[in-house]
């Protein structure tokens, strides 16, 4: 069913100019306001109340394998591990932000009002693999009622002994607070070559109720 490649390349070269820049379809800010920590946002939550929501947690922590059974890190998957998760206020102002989806690509951006509070999230596992503090905004999205924290890191910057199997991999940490408290650490490999960019993302470990790589019905 595939035409010979040379025929196709000729048609492209003859018929089309270079592409124009995409008008990105995304959540764009339509209003924002700075809040003091005790000031309620128009949606009804103050930064201090959001910090209360992200109270310290001690939970069981599981090191994960990929769906193919490979271990993305040097962590011991058989060990019983716990994790201590704490958040504290970091410097910077809290913001109430309202976004709306704009642009001409049709990804659902899950836009709407949100509250952003700079925090320092500490993550310490009982096996010593992670003894870290990450700084980023704790973000409460009012549409879902979930407060979440996301940060990327370089493995060589970690205080703990966790290292990835893949050379050049980076790390990500995600934490959620609300009715469900959960989070994970992931290993990310990005490769670029031959006109393509490729990304491999593997969850390395998690706490709380996190869907497995595959969930059969």
């Amino acid at each position, binding site marked *: 069913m595939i035409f010979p490649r040379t025929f*196709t390349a000729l048609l492209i070269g003859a018929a089309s100019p*270079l592409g124009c820049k995409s008008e990105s379809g995304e959540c764009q800010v339509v209003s924002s306001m700075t809040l003091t920590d005790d000031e309620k946002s128009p949606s009804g939550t103050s930064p201090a109340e959001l910090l209360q929501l992200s109270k310290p947690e001690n939970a069981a922590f599981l090191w994960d394998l990929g769906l*193919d059974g490979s271990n993305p890190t040097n962590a011991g998957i058989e060990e019983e591990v716990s994790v201590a998760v704490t958040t504290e206020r970091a410097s910077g102002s809290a913001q109430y932000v309202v976004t709306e989806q704009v642009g001409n690509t*049709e990804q*659902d951006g*899950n836009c709407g009002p949100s509250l952003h509070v700079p925090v320092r999230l500490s993550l310490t596992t009982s096996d010593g693999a992670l003894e870290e503090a990450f700084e980023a905004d704790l973000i409460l999205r009012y549409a879902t009622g979930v407060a979440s924290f996301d940060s990327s890191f370089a493995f060589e910057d970690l205080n703990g002994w966790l290292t990835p199997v893949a050379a050049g991999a980076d790390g990500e940490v995600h934490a959620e607070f609300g009715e469900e408290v959960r989070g994970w650490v992931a290993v990310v490999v990005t490769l670029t070559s031959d006109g393509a960019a490729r990304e491999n993302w593997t*969850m390395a470990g998690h706490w709380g109720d996190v869907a497995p*790589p595959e969930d059969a019905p």
Partner: protein
Amino acid sequence: MNNDVDPPNGTPIDLDCSGTKISRRIVIAVGHCFFKSGAWTDTRRLVPAADGIADSELGADPSPHGSTTSQWRYIRGDWMDHEWTNYDFGLMVLYNDSALKCWWWHAWQENSSGLTQDDVLLYGYPGEFQDCGGANSPHDDDFCFASIYGMGDPVITEGAYRFHYYMDTQPGMSGTGVYKIEGSERVVYGSHRGDYGCCMTDASRLNGGNTDLIQDAQSDHPGDGC
């Protein structure tokens, strides 16, 4: 398609994009589903034949065929570097161990011209909180709730990278396979992308460059069995 940890069984589905399985391990979509504004998105999970209405109306499982996390995601280099509309194409590669590897897939056709006036169809998944209008939603609030929605219409104009049509689509439907009916078979010619001009919408066609991406992914990650 959604992010890694929401559903299978959550409410709402938190749908991000639509996609089309075209081989054992390849699910095609568009580049902005996977990489946008200079960063990779968290859209990695495939929930085939998702049913958000069943979920929101009946409390039923919105993932009747389960779900799976992709192993790799591929986008065009020019999409990563510039986010040029003409390179808005991408795909997910499923694990070779995934139970969904042998779940059925569409035929597809490399193409770079010749679609004008041809009837094409698309059926994708508008996001939970997009407005589908009263006739298209059982919800009092008219929200689409990530239930399959689509239509067919002729291709109006085309270029070597994209083809354009008058079909009303919603956020969440990016990546939907745009197909023709050939005999008894649905054959995918492109992935729905977004608006074009004031009134049309368009698809990234499966031209030579996008076909190269598919074939590179298949070569890097062959799927055996089935």
